[in-house]
């Protein structure tokens, strides 16, 4: 099949995208390694950090996926008013910058958060969020939305005809449709979340409560910023990539590919909708867990909107431009990569997840610096890096859809002589519109909230919204910063919503 798909499409867009991703992930790492004078290797404390990082990432990914399955199932089975909006809203925590999300979580689960206020008025001892469980809780808060969306997509990808067939034959849907679907979707979802948690830094430290919960990314930060030990940073980044490759191979080993076949894109009608109470309970629990902290961020930040300096709005415009730029680039690269060839595309497609943002930024700095003042290219570099870092999510969203199009329509397309741009425009794009809209929204919103590479490059006039927010915090202006956080949350969500619903327009979801 792959052979035929390749013959339909030119190779160069995929190859170019792949090269760009490799350049920004492994290339930046090489740039850092080449500059290192290798004064020290991995230290004893680093091994403890590596151990903790892997363990928390496994637990976080496991819990996220485990909770996501019933929520996604409930959302796939039920139809109710505002369902579409709720699905989009549930995605919001994933789009938040870490600093903002921590504020929201602490407002609910912190020492003086609403949960503890409630518990202590009932006469019980307050609960402490800080510790291993706090790290997992925060990572689930971030990643449950992603897991729900990916798994929900799996459910929605089962054609209506299969449900009809199952119903008419009296076959159990769980065993014949849902479990095979999960076996194809869950491993890659687990992999993505595992890798996100692998590069966690501020969440793990802040909610972990101390140096016990040091992650590899913090060790990299320390090596780069405090010790200027580029060699150690490069080694640690290599370990992150190594873990990524092992995890990816394991995930693929456990993935079972299924062909659900094509349908006529009919609305799914279900005949097995017993026990609505349990479904709605899961939806309510997930909504409460994900939306209450968001609500707290908004409640706390609204007054701050009024005291925000005007420059924050300009920074916001800049961020929107960066978001649109990197979403466009990211989607183009992802489509090119996904059409290129599956095996290579898959490996390249997850690589950025294991990349340390700091190493990417530092490497890009080293590559750019000899040619041009870093602040002059701050925004283009940010667009490029953000597009690359969001690529795994878009790839994950559109990859299966594109593979399905190639499987299902490749022969038909070839037989009528469709190729290149026409094939893409007439057959592929309309059929991947839903995941592509989701991917575009995701990459735009992630780029909007990113505070990684920009801090290394930006001067005064390249300030983005997250950077403006962070600078407000650094200047004691916590109220204004909370206002900026609400603006950031609002804009990220809006841009995500527009792309996501744009992709679903007149699709029957």
């Amino acid at each position, binding site marked *: 099949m792959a052979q035929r798909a390749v013959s339909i499409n030119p190779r160069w867009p995929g190859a170019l995208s792949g090269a760009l991703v490799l350049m920004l992930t492994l290339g930046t790492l090489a740039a850092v390694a080449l500059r290192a004078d290798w004064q020290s290797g991995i230290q004893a404390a680093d091994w403890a950090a590596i151990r903790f990082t892997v363990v928390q990432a496994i637990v976080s990914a496991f819990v996220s996926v485990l909770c996501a399955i019933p929520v996604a199932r409930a959302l796939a089975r039920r139809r109710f008013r505002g369902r579409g909006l709720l699905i989009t809203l549930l995605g919001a925590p994933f789009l938040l910058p870490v600093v903002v999300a921590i504020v929201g979580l*602490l407002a609910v689960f*912190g*020492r003086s958060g609403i949960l503890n206020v409630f518990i202590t008025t009932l006469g019980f001892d307050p609960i402490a969020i*800080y510790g291993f469980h706090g790290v997992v809780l925060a990572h689930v808060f971030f990643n449950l939305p992603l897991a729900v969306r990916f798994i929900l997509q799996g459910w929605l990808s089962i054609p209506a005809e299969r449900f009809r067939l199952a119903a008419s034959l009296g076959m159990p849907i769980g065993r014949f449709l849902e479990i095979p679907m999960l076996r194809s979707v869950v491993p890659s979802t687990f992999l993505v979340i595992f890798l996100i948690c692998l590069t966690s830094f501020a969440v793990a430290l802040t909610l972990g409560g101390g140096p016990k919960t040091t992650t590899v990314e*913090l060790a990299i930060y320390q090596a780069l910023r405090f010790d200027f030990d580029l060699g150690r940073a490069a080694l640690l980044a290599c370990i992150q990539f190594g873990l990524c490759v092992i995890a990816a191979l394991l995930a693929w080993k456990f993935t079972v590919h299924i062909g659900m076949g094509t349908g006529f894109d009919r609305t799914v009608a279900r005949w097995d909708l017993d026990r609505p109470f349990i479904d709605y309970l899961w939806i309510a629990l997930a909504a409460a867990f994900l939306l209450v902290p968001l609500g707290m961020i908004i409640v706390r930040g609204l007054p701050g909107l009024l005291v925000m300096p005007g420059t924050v709005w300009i920074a916001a415009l800049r961020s929107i431009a960066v978001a649109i730029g990197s979403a466009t680039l990211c989607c183009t690269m992802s489509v090119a990569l996904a059409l290129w060839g599956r095996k290579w595309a898959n490996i390249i497609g997850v690589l950025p997840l294991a990349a340390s943002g700091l190493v990417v930024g530092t490497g890009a700095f080293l590559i750019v610096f000899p040619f041009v003042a870093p602040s002059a290219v701050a925004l*283009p570099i940010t667009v490029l890096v953000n597009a690359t870092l969001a690529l795994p999510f878009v790839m994950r969203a559109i990859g299966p859809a594109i593979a399905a199009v190639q499987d299902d329509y490749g022969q038909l397309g070839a037989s009528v002589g469709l190729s290149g741009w026409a094939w893409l425009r007439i057959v592929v794009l309309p059929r991947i519109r839903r995941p592509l809209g989701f991917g575009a929204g995701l990459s735009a919103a992630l780029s909007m909230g990113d505070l990684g590479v920009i801090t290394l490059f930006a001067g005064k006039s390249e300030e983005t919204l997250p950077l403006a927010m962070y600078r407000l915090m650094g200047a004691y202006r916590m109220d204004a910063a909370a206002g900026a956080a609400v603006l950031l949350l609002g804009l990220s969500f809006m841009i995500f919503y527009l792309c996501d619903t744009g992709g679903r327009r007149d699709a029957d979801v």
Partner: protein
Amino acid sequence: MQKPIYLPVVAGLAICATGALAETPVLQVLTYDSFVSEWGPGPAVEAAFEAECACDLEFVGSSDGAALLARLQLEGPRTEFDVVLGLDTNLTAAARETGLFAPHGVTADLDLPIEWTDPDFLPFDWGYFAFVGNADATSASSLRDLADSDLKIVIQDPRSSTPGLGLLMWVKDAYPEEAADLWATLADNIVTVTPGWSEAYGMFLDGEADAVLSYTTSPAYHLIAEEDASKVAWSFDEGHYMQVEVAGKVASTDQSDLADQFLAFMVSDGFQSVIPTTNWMYPAVIPEAGLPEGFETLMTPTASLLKSPEDAAAIRDEALEEWRNALSQ
């Protein structure tokens, strides 16, 4: 593969950059982010210096103090920067070792609680680390007292934050032999450790802890900018560790005279009078008009602690190890 994509961009930008090079010399100063922000000292300092130098002063912000040195080391001798402003004495030994700095050559009458003799780095402001809490609440009277109490604090990680590193030095300086023991007793007081100052300070304001590691001058911000007298710095019997923020002249500068002029300006009124209510620290030289109203209410420590840059660098790894072991139990 990347070159074809960005070479035209690079070329275009290079052309723009050359076009912008007018007759006026440009002094490029690398500093931390909050210095250049519109609430920081940057804009006022820039205006004041440009009024007398016939030059263009350009501040470039790069996250925090620790990042400055890393940035300069990344750029190496090819750097375009003429002055680096915002290192502290925990970093100056490492900075000196890079060989990227030249002596500042300024003789100034500094108002620091300690004697200043460093030939390479010149202070522009300073402050005392302190735990900042609420005025109407229980407080601690010493590090030891804090460790023995039930009070909850938020601190910063010494591996990623300069105040965090300051506390590490504070404990080590006050308890050279028993630092590990003190950290072990402090462990149950520490709610959490944050990557940077902002997160910790925000958590304290949100009620997550009784106090946060910050500066004795922090209450001045609330008093002067927000007319809120509810925040106080706790006075500790052991004395308070200082942070002295310094600037250095980059050895490879192509604007040597202008850099000298800037460093001399840095300890003059035009620069120093801006510091207290923008950087919320003590100016290195008290301005002619004195300190702003409100600063007289601040707590003055009984003793000022500060290790020499060389000592600070020498004990850092050991102190870090003690900290990590004690808090990892």
